[in-house]
Protein backbone atom coordinates (compact mmCIF):
# COMPACT_ATOMS: atom_id res chain seq x y z
CA UNK A 1 0.00 0.00 0.00
CA UNK A 2 1.45 3.40 -0.83
CA UNK A 3 1.01 6.41 1.43
CA UNK A 4 -1.63 7.97 -0.77
CA UNK A 5 -3.89 4.95 -0.44
CA UNK A 6 -3.28 4.42 3.25
CA UNK A 7 -5.45 7.34 4.41
CA UNK A 8 -7.78 7.27 1.45
CA UNK A 9 -10.59 5.82 3.46
CA UNK A 10 -10.61 7.91 6.65
CA UNK A 11 -13.72 10.11 6.80
CA UNK A 12 -15.05 12.74 9.15
CA UNK A 13 -18.31 11.11 10.25
CA UNK A 14 -19.55 13.86 12.54
CA UNK A 15 -18.64 16.41 15.16
CA UNK A 16 -19.72 19.10 17.58
CA UNK A 17 -18.22 21.96 19.56
CA UNK A 18 -19.45 24.13 22.42
CA UNK A 19 -19.94 27.85 21.87
CA UNK A 20 -16.86 29.48 23.39
CA UNK A 21 -17.78 31.13 26.70
CA UNK A 22 -15.85 33.02 29.36
CA UNK A 23 -16.41 31.38 31.70
CA UNK A 24 -18.38 28.29 30.81
CA UNK A 25 -19.83 27.36 34.22
CA UNK A 26 -19.85 23.65 33.38
CA UNK A 27 -17.07 21.33 34.54
CA UNK A 28 -14.57 19.99 32.01
CA UNK A 29 -16.33 16.61 32.12
CA UNK A 30 -19.74 18.16 31.46
CA UNK A 31 -18.43 20.16 28.52
CA UNK A 32 -16.79 17.04 27.07
CA UNK A 33 -19.96 15.02 27.60
CA UNK A 34 -21.99 17.65 25.76
CA UNK A 35 -19.85 17.54 22.63
CA UNK A 36 -19.45 13.76 22.68
CA UNK A 37 -23.23 13.22 22.79
CA UNK A 38 -23.83 15.73 20.00
CA UNK A 39 -20.94 14.39 17.86
CA UNK A 40 -22.32 10.84 18.09
CA UNK A 41 -25.77 12.13 17.18
CA UNK A 42 -24.29 14.05 14.24
CA UNK A 43 -22.51 10.88 13.09
CA UNK A 44 -25.65 8.79 13.70
CA UNK A 45 -23.64 6.43 15.90
CA UNK A 46 -23.91 5.04 19.44
CA UNK A 47 -21.29 4.66 22.16
CA UNK A 48 -20.92 0.99 21.29
CA UNK A 49 -19.89 1.90 17.73
CA UNK A 50 -16.74 3.66 18.98
CA UNK A 51 -13.65 1.41 18.95
CA UNK A 52 -11.15 3.81 20.52
CA UNK A 53 -10.76 7.33 21.84
CA UNK A 54 -8.05 9.96 21.44
CA UNK A 55 -8.23 13.02 23.70
CA UNK A 56 -6.27 16.26 23.57
CA UNK A 57 -5.65 18.40 26.64
CA UNK A 58 -2.77 20.07 28.45
CA UNK A 59 -2.27 19.26 32.15
CA UNK A 60 -0.80 22.65 32.90
CA UNK A 61 -3.85 24.44 31.50
CA UNK A 62 -6.27 22.15 33.34
CA UNK A 63 -4.47 22.54 36.66
CA UNK A 64 -4.16 18.82 37.23
CA UNK A 65 -1.90 16.08 35.99
CA UNK A 66 -3.07 13.46 33.51
CA UNK A 67 -6.01 15.71 32.74
CA UNK A 68 -7.57 13.01 30.58
CA UNK A 69 -8.61 11.20 33.79
CA UNK A 70 -11.23 13.91 34.28
CA UNK A 71 -13.01 12.87 31.10
CA UNK A 72 -12.30 9.14 30.81
CA UNK A 73 -15.88 8.18 31.61
CA UNK A 74 -17.63 10.84 29.59
CA UNK A 75 -15.68 10.13 26.42
CA UNK A 76 -16.68 6.49 26.80
CA UNK A 77 -13.07 5.40 27.15
CA UNK A 78 -13.59 3.10 30.11
CA UNK A 79 -12.72 -0.43 28.98
CA UNK A 80 -11.66 0.97 25.60
CA UNK A 81 -8.28 1.88 24.11
CA UNK A 82 -7.54 5.49 25.01
CA UNK A 83 -4.70 7.64 23.76
CA UNK A 84 -4.05 11.07 25.16
CA UNK A 85 -2.20 13.83 23.31
CA UNK A 86 -0.85 16.84 25.23
CA UNK A 87 -1.01 19.19 22.26
CA UNK A 88 -3.54 20.79 19.95
CA UNK A 89 -6.69 18.77 19.14
CA UNK A 90 -5.74 18.47 15.47
CA UNK A 91 -2.68 16.43 16.53
CA UNK A 92 -5.13 14.10 18.33
CA UNK A 93 -7.20 13.80 15.14
CA UNK A 94 -4.04 12.94 13.19
CA UNK A 95 -3.25 10.22 15.74
CA UNK A 96 -6.78 8.84 15.20
CA UNK A 97 -6.34 8.94 11.40
CA UNK A 98 -3.13 6.93 11.76
CA UNK A 99 -4.83 4.37 14.02
CA UNK A 100 -7.59 3.86 11.46
CA UNK A 101 -5.23 3.88 8.46
CA UNK A 102 -3.07 1.27 10.21
CA UNK A 103 -6.13 -0.95 10.46
CA UNK A 104 -6.16 -0.94 14.26
CA UNK A 105 -9.69 0.49 14.59
CA UNK A 106 -12.62 1.39 12.36
CA UNK A 107 -14.21 4.24 14.30
CA UNK A 108 -12.32 6.61 16.60
CA UNK A 109 -13.69 9.46 18.70
CA UNK A 110 -11.47 12.53 19.11
CA UNK A 111 -12.16 14.95 21.97
CA UNK A 112 -10.34 18.18 22.89
CA UNK A 113 -11.07 20.44 25.83
CA UNK A 114 -9.63 23.50 27.49
CA UNK A 115 -10.75 26.23 29.89
CA UNK A 116 -8.81 29.48 29.77
CA UNK A 117 -11.00 30.79 32.61
CA UNK A 118 -9.28 28.51 35.15
CA UNK A 119 -6.17 30.69 35.49
CA UNK A 120 -4.37 33.59 33.83
CA UNK A 121 -3.62 31.69 30.64
CA UNK A 122 -0.50 33.59 29.53
CA UNK A 123 1.06 33.51 33.02
CA UNK A 124 0.43 29.78 33.05
CA UNK A 125 2.32 29.34 29.77
CA UNK A 126 5.49 30.55 31.51
CA UNK A 127 5.57 27.09 33.15
CA UNK A 128 5.63 25.48 29.72
CA UNK A 129 8.95 27.20 28.98
CA UNK A 130 12.41 25.72 29.59
CA UNK A 131 12.87 25.87 33.41
CA UNK A 132 16.61 26.66 33.35
CA UNK A 133 17.08 29.38 30.74
CA UNK A 134 13.65 30.87 29.96
CA UNK A 135 11.12 30.42 32.75
CA UNK A 136 13.31 32.21 35.41
CA UNK A 137 13.32 35.31 33.18
CA UNK A 138 9.51 35.43 33.14
CA UNK A 139 9.28 34.42 29.48
CA UNK A 140 5.87 33.08 28.46
CA UNK A 141 4.13 32.32 25.14
CA UNK A 142 2.99 35.94 24.87
CA UNK A 143 6.57 37.23 25.31
CA UNK A 144 7.69 35.04 22.44
CA UNK A 145 4.72 36.16 20.30
CA UNK A 146 5.70 39.78 20.96
CA UNK A 147 9.33 39.12 19.98
CA UNK A 148 8.20 37.29 16.85
CA UNK A 149 5.84 40.12 15.86
CA UNK A 150 8.56 42.75 16.44
CA UNK A 151 11.10 40.72 14.45
CA UNK A 152 8.67 40.50 11.52
CA UNK A 153 7.74 44.19 11.79
CA UNK A 154 11.42 45.24 11.80
CA UNK A 155 11.53 48.91 10.93
CA UNK A 156 8.25 48.80 8.96
CA UNK A 157 5.94 50.99 11.04
CA UNK A 158 2.99 50.63 8.62
CA UNK A 159 2.71 46.90 9.29
CA UNK A 160 1.18 47.51 12.73
CA UNK A 161 -1.78 49.30 11.13
CA UNK A 162 -2.24 46.45 8.62
CA UNK A 163 -2.31 43.98 11.53
CA UNK A 164 -4.92 46.14 13.27
CA UNK A 165 -6.99 46.16 10.06
CA UNK A 166 -6.78 42.39 9.79
CA UNK A 167 -7.69 41.84 13.46
CA UNK A 168 -10.68 44.19 13.19
CA UNK A 169 -11.77 42.48 9.97
CA UNK A 170 -11.56 38.97 11.44
CA UNK A 171 -13.45 40.05 14.56
CA UNK A 172 -16.17 41.69 12.43
CA UNK A 173 -16.52 38.54 10.28
CA UNK A 174 -16.82 36.40 13.41
CA UNK A 175 -20.22 37.95 14.26
CA UNK A 176 -20.66 37.03 17.88
CA UNK A 177 -18.46 34.77 19.93
CA UNK A 178 -16.65 36.29 22.88
CA UNK A 179 -14.61 39.46 23.17
CA UNK A 180 -15.42 42.99 22.09
CA UNK A 181 -15.43 44.18 18.52
CA UNK A 182 -12.87 46.85 17.71
CA UNK A 183 -12.50 49.47 15.00
CA UNK A 184 -9.01 49.72 13.53
CA UNK A 185 -8.29 52.83 15.61
CA UNK A 186 -9.57 51.13 18.74
CA UNK A 187 -7.23 48.19 18.09
CA UNK A 188 -4.33 50.64 17.76
CA UNK A 189 -5.32 52.36 21.00
CA UNK A 190 -6.05 49.19 22.99
CA UNK A 191 -3.59 48.29 25.79
CA UNK A 192 -0.24 46.76 24.84
CA UNK A 193 0.04 43.14 26.01
CA UNK A 194 3.40 42.29 24.41
CA UNK A 195 4.62 45.11 22.19
CA UNK A 196 3.88 45.52 19.35
CA UNK A 197 0.87 43.28 20.09
CA UNK A 198 -2.15 44.97 21.65
CA UNK A 199 -5.25 43.43 23.25
CA UNK A 200 -7.28 44.03 20.08
CA UNK A 201 -4.75 42.04 18.01
CA UNK A 202 -5.21 38.86 20.05
CA UNK A 203 -8.01 36.37 19.43
CA UNK A 204 -10.11 36.09 22.62
CA UNK A 205 -9.55 33.02 24.80
CA UNK A 206 -12.32 31.27 26.70
CA UNK A 207 -13.62 27.82 27.58
CA UNK A 208 -14.49 25.20 24.99
CA UNK A 209 -14.72 21.56 24.02
CA UNK A 210 -14.85 19.88 20.63
CA UNK A 211 -15.47 16.29 19.50
CA UNK A 212 -15.03 14.70 16.08
CA UNK A 213 -15.80 11.13 14.99
CA UNK A 214 -13.46 9.66 12.39
CA UNK A 215 -14.06 6.38 10.62
CA UNK A 216 -12.84 4.01 7.96
CA UNK A 217 -14.95 4.24 4.85
CA UNK A 218 -17.88 6.45 5.64
CA UNK A 219 -20.56 4.83 3.50
CA UNK A 220 -23.14 6.98 1.77
CA UNK A 221 -23.55 9.59 4.49
CA UNK A 222 -25.89 12.49 3.82
CA UNK A 223 -24.28 15.17 1.69
CA UNK A 224 -21.33 13.08 0.56
CA UNK A 225 -18.11 12.12 2.31
CA UNK A 226 -15.44 14.36 3.73
CA UNK A 227 -12.20 12.41 3.53
CA UNK A 228 -8.98 13.28 5.32
CA UNK A 229 -6.72 13.01 2.29
CA UNK A 230 -3.48 14.05 3.95
CA UNK A 231 -2.02 14.83 7.37
CA UNK A 232 1.25 16.29 8.57
CA UNK A 233 2.71 17.44 11.85
CA UNK A 234 6.04 18.75 13.05
CA UNK A 235 7.76 19.82 16.24
CA UNK A 236 10.43 22.53 16.03
CA UNK A 237 13.09 23.47 18.57
CA UNK A 238 11.62 24.65 21.89
CA UNK A 239 14.06 27.54 22.36
CA UNK A 240 12.64 30.36 20.22
CA UNK A 241 16.17 31.75 19.74
CA UNK A 242 17.22 28.51 18.02
CA UNK A 243 14.64 29.07 15.29
CA UNK A 244 14.22 31.63 12.53
CA UNK A 245 11.16 33.33 13.96
CA UNK A 246 10.43 35.14 10.69
CA UNK A 247 8.88 31.92 9.39
CA UNK A 248 6.95 28.84 10.48
CA UNK A 249 9.40 26.28 9.11
CA UNK A 250 7.71 23.50 11.09
CA UNK A 251 4.40 24.26 9.38
CA UNK A 252 6.11 24.25 5.99
CA UNK A 253 7.44 20.73 6.70
CA UNK A 254 4.07 19.55 8.05
CA UNK A 255 2.32 20.84 4.92
CA UNK A 256 4.80 19.14 2.58
CA UNK A 257 4.05 15.81 4.30
CA UNK A 258 0.29 16.35 4.07
CA UNK A 259 0.41 17.53 0.45
CA UNK A 260 2.57 14.58 -0.53
CA UNK A 261 0.04 12.22 1.05
CA UNK A 262 -2.91 13.97 -0.60
CA UNK A 263 -1.23 14.13 -4.01
CA UNK A 264 -1.26 17.95 -4.03
CA UNK A 265 1.44 19.44 -6.24
CA UNK A 266 0.33 23.09 -6.28
CA UNK A 267 -1.08 24.27 -2.95
CA UNK A 268 -1.69 27.73 -4.41
CA UNK A 269 -4.71 26.37 -6.33
CA UNK A 270 -5.59 23.33 -4.22
CA UNK A 271 -7.90 24.73 -1.52
CA UNK A 272 -11.32 26.40 -1.55
CA UNK A 273 -10.98 27.23 2.14
CA UNK A 274 -8.20 27.35 4.73
CA UNK A 275 -8.88 27.38 8.44
CA UNK A 276 -5.67 28.46 10.19
CA UNK A 277 -5.29 28.57 13.99
CA UNK A 278 -3.87 32.08 14.24
CA UNK A 279 -4.16 33.95 17.54
CA UNK A 280 -2.47 37.08 16.13
CA UNK A 281 -2.52 38.82 12.72
CA UNK A 282 1.24 38.36 12.23
CA UNK A 283 0.70 34.59 12.43
CA UNK A 284 -1.66 34.70 9.46
CA UNK A 285 1.16 35.89 7.18
CA UNK A 286 3.38 33.09 8.55
CA UNK A 287 0.59 30.59 7.80
CA UNK A 288 0.00 31.78 4.22
CA UNK A 289 3.71 31.69 3.48
CA UNK A 290 4.33 28.25 5.01
CA UNK A 291 1.17 26.58 3.64
CA UNK A 292 1.59 28.17 0.21
CA UNK A 293 -2.14 28.84 -0.16
CA UNK A 294 -3.08 31.27 -2.94
CA UNK A 295 -5.48 34.15 -3.54
CA UNK A 296 -8.38 31.86 -4.49
CA UNK A 297 -8.34 30.20 -1.07
CA UNK A 298 -10.80 31.82 1.35
CA UNK A 299 -9.14 32.22 4.73
CA UNK A 300 -11.15 31.91 7.97
CA UNK A 301 -14.62 32.61 6.49
CA UNK A 302 -16.09 32.69 10.03
CA UNK A 303 -13.41 34.99 11.47
CA UNK A 304 -11.10 32.16 12.51
CA UNK A 305 -10.00 32.18 16.14
CA UNK A 306 -11.19 35.78 16.52
CA UNK A 307 -14.67 34.39 17.25
CA UNK A 308 -13.05 33.00 20.40
CA UNK A 309 -11.08 29.88 21.10
CA UNK A 310 -9.82 27.74 23.98
CA UNK A 311 -6.51 26.02 24.76
CA UNK A 312 -6.06 22.66 22.97
CA UNK A 313 -9.28 22.80 20.93
CA UNK A 314 -8.46 25.26 18.13
CA UNK A 315 -7.18 22.85 15.49
CA UNK A 316 -9.93 20.27 16.05
CA UNK A 317 -12.52 23.04 15.70
CA UNK A 318 -10.78 24.10 12.46
CA UNK A 319 -11.07 20.51 11.19
CA UNK A 320 -14.82 20.60 11.82
CA UNK A 321 -15.18 23.91 9.98
CA UNK A 322 -12.99 22.75 7.10
CA UNK A 323 -15.24 19.68 6.80
CA UNK A 324 -18.42 21.76 6.74
CA UNK A 325 -16.88 24.10 4.18
CA UNK A 326 -16.33 21.42 1.55
CA UNK A 327 -18.88 18.71 2.30
CA UNK A 328 -21.31 18.30 -0.56
CA UNK A 329 -18.98 20.00 -3.08
CA UNK A 330 -17.28 16.96 -4.55
CA UNK A 331 -13.62 17.51 -5.36
CA UNK A 332 -13.33 20.59 -3.16
CA UNK A 333 -10.54 20.71 -0.61
CA UNK A 334 -10.00 22.59 2.64
CA UNK A 335 -6.94 22.90 4.86
CA UNK A 336 -7.28 22.71 8.66
CA UNK A 337 -4.43 23.88 10.89
CA UNK A 338 -3.54 23.63 14.55
CA UNK A 339 -0.52 24.82 16.52
CA UNK A 340 0.79 24.62 20.07
CA UNK A 341 3.75 25.72 22.15
CA UNK A 342 5.66 29.02 22.00
CA UNK A 343 5.53 30.87 18.64
CA UNK A 344 4.28 27.86 16.70
CA UNK A 345 6.72 25.23 18.00
CA UNK A 346 4.23 22.45 17.25
CA UNK A 347 2.34 22.42 13.96
CA UNK A 348 -0.36 20.15 12.51
CA UNK A 349 -2.37 20.22 9.28
CA UNK A 350 -5.05 18.07 7.68
CA UNK A 351 -6.28 18.17 4.09
CA UNK A 352 -10.05 17.57 3.92
CA UNK A 353 -11.44 16.52 0.57
CA UNK A 354 -15.11 16.17 -0.43
CA UNK A 355 -15.95 12.98 -2.31
Amino acid at each position, binding site marked *: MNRQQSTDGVSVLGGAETAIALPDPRSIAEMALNVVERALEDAELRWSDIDAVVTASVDLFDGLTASSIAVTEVVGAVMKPETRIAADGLAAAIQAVHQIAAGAYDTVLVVAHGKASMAHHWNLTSWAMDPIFLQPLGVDFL*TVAGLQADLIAGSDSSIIRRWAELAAHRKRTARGGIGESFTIDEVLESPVIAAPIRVGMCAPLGDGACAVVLGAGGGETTGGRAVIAGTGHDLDSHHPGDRDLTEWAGLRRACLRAYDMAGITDPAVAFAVAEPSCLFPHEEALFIDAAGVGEQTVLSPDGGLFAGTAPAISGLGRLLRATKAVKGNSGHRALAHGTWGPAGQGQAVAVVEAR
Partner: protein
Amino acid sequence: MILEGSIRLPFSYAAGVVGSRFLVALRDEQVILGGRCSDCGTVSCPARSMCPECGTHVDDLVEVGPGGTVEAWTEMPGKPAFGLIRLDGADTALIHHLLSGEGKWQPNTRVTARFAPERVGDINDIEGFEEERGAS
Protein backbone atom coordinates in the same frame (compact mmCIF):
# COMPACT_ATOMS: atom_id res chain seq x y z
CA MET B 1 -19.81 26.76 42.09
CA ILE B 2 -16.22 27.64 41.41
CA LEU B 3 -13.68 26.40 43.97
CA GLU B 4 -10.57 28.56 44.36
CA GLY B 5 -7.21 26.81 44.60
CA SER B 6 -3.54 27.43 43.95
CA ILE B 7 -0.57 25.25 43.10
CA ARG B 8 2.64 26.17 44.92
CA LEU B 9 5.24 23.47 45.26
CA PRO B 10 9.05 23.74 45.53
CA PHE B 11 10.73 21.96 42.66
CA SER B 12 14.32 20.96 41.78
CA TYR B 13 15.37 21.16 38.14
CA ALA B 14 18.64 19.62 36.89
CA ALA B 15 20.44 22.06 34.59
CA GLY B 16 22.35 19.15 33.03
CA VAL B 17 26.09 18.63 32.55
CA VAL B 18 26.56 21.26 29.85
CA GLY B 19 23.87 23.58 31.21
CA SER B 20 25.65 23.52 34.59
CA ARG B 21 28.97 24.48 32.97
CA PHE B 22 27.15 27.42 31.36
CA LEU B 23 25.69 28.54 34.71
CA VAL B 24 28.96 28.05 36.64
CA ALA B 25 30.79 30.18 34.04
CA LEU B 26 28.22 32.95 34.54
CA ARG B 27 28.64 32.75 38.30
CA ASP B 28 32.42 32.34 38.65
CA GLU B 29 33.86 34.01 35.56
CA GLN B 30 31.15 36.33 34.25
CA VAL B 31 31.56 34.55 30.94
CA ILE B 32 28.79 33.44 28.55
CA LEU B 33 29.36 30.03 26.97
CA GLY B 34 28.04 28.70 23.71
CA GLY B 35 28.12 25.08 22.60
CA ARG B 36 29.97 24.35 19.35
CA CYS B 37 28.66 21.39 17.37
CA SER B 38 31.44 19.06 16.18
CA ASP B 39 29.28 18.01 13.25
CA CYS B 40 27.59 21.08 11.73
CA GLY B 41 29.64 23.80 13.43
CA THR B 42 26.62 25.65 14.85
CA VAL B 43 27.44 27.63 18.00
CA SER B 44 24.30 27.66 20.14
CA CYS B 45 23.70 29.81 23.19
CA PRO B 46 22.87 29.08 25.96
CA ALA B 47 25.12 26.02 25.75
CA ARG B 48 23.18 22.77 26.01
CA SER B 49 24.07 19.09 25.58
CA MET B 50 22.57 18.82 22.11
CA CYS B 51 22.97 20.85 18.96
CA PRO B 52 19.58 22.44 18.16
CA GLU B 53 20.42 22.34 14.45
CA CYS B 54 21.31 18.66 14.02
CA GLY B 55 20.93 16.87 17.38
CA THR B 56 24.62 16.02 17.77
CA HIS B 57 26.00 15.69 21.30
CA VAL B 58 27.79 18.91 22.26
CA ASP B 59 30.74 19.10 24.68
CA ASP B 60 32.94 21.77 23.11
CA LEU B 61 32.11 25.03 24.87
CA VAL B 62 33.32 28.39 23.57
CA GLU B 63 33.05 31.92 24.91
CA VAL B 64 30.46 34.08 23.15
CA GLY B 65 29.48 37.73 23.68
CA PRO B 66 29.32 39.58 26.03
CA GLY B 67 28.46 41.97 23.17
CA GLY B 68 25.76 41.32 20.61
CA THR B 69 22.95 42.82 18.59
CA VAL B 70 19.26 43.12 19.34
CA GLU B 71 17.16 41.31 16.73
CA ALA B 72 13.78 41.94 18.32
CA TRP B 73 12.26 43.54 21.36
CA THR B 74 9.05 43.29 23.34
CA GLU B 75 7.59 44.99 26.35
CA MET B 76 4.85 43.64 28.60
CA PRO B 77 3.00 45.40 31.41
CA GLY B 78 4.71 44.85 34.76
CA LYS B 79 7.82 43.17 33.34
CA PRO B 80 11.24 44.43 32.25
CA ALA B 81 11.67 44.61 28.46
CA PHE B 82 12.73 41.44 26.63
CA GLY B 83 15.13 41.16 23.73
CA LEU B 84 16.05 38.50 21.21
CA ILE B 85 19.81 38.98 21.27
CA ARG B 86 22.38 37.54 18.85
CA LEU B 87 25.65 37.39 20.83
CA ASP B 88 28.92 37.85 18.98
CA GLY B 89 30.18 34.40 17.99
CA ALA B 90 26.81 32.65 18.40
CA ASP B 91 24.57 31.32 15.61
CA THR B 92 21.41 31.22 17.71
CA ALA B 93 19.72 34.02 19.63
CA LEU B 94 19.30 34.38 23.38
CA ILE B 95 16.16 35.74 25.03
CA HIS B 96 17.01 38.03 27.95
CA HIS B 97 16.11 41.37 29.47
CA LEU B 98 16.96 44.74 27.93
CA LEU B 99 17.90 47.18 30.65
CA SER B 100 18.41 50.69 29.36
CA GLY B 101 16.04 52.94 27.48
CA GLU B 102 12.30 52.98 27.04
CA GLY B 103 10.05 52.00 24.16
CA LYS B 104 10.98 50.17 20.99
CA TRP B 105 14.56 49.00 20.49
CA GLN B 106 15.59 49.32 16.88
CA PRO B 107 16.87 46.16 15.21
CA ASN B 108 20.67 45.81 15.18
CA THR B 109 21.23 47.99 18.25
CA ARG B 110 24.56 46.95 19.83
CA VAL B 111 24.27 45.74 23.43
CA THR B 112 26.48 44.17 26.07
CA ALA B 113 25.76 41.97 29.07
CA ARG B 114 25.59 43.42 32.56
CA PHE B 115 26.33 40.85 35.26
CA ALA B 116 24.70 40.85 38.69
CA PRO B 117 27.04 41.78 41.58
CA GLU B 118 25.82 38.73 43.54
CA ARG B 119 25.76 35.61 41.35
CA VAL B 120 24.34 32.22 42.26
CA GLY B 121 24.54 30.14 39.07
CA ASP B 122 21.30 31.18 37.42
CA ILE B 123 20.36 32.72 34.07
CA ASN B 124 19.57 35.87 36.11
CA ASP B 125 23.30 36.13 36.95
CA ILE B 126 23.12 38.21 33.80
CA GLU B 127 20.97 41.12 34.92
CA GLY B 128 20.27 41.91 31.31
CA PHE B 129 21.73 43.69 28.32
CA GLU B 130 22.39 47.41 27.99
CA GLU B 131 23.29 49.57 25.03
CA GLU B 132 27.02 49.33 24.31
CA ARG B 133 28.94 52.41 25.40
CA GLY B 134 30.17 54.47 22.50
CA ALA B 135 27.64 52.86 20.17
CA SER B 136 25.82 55.38 18.03
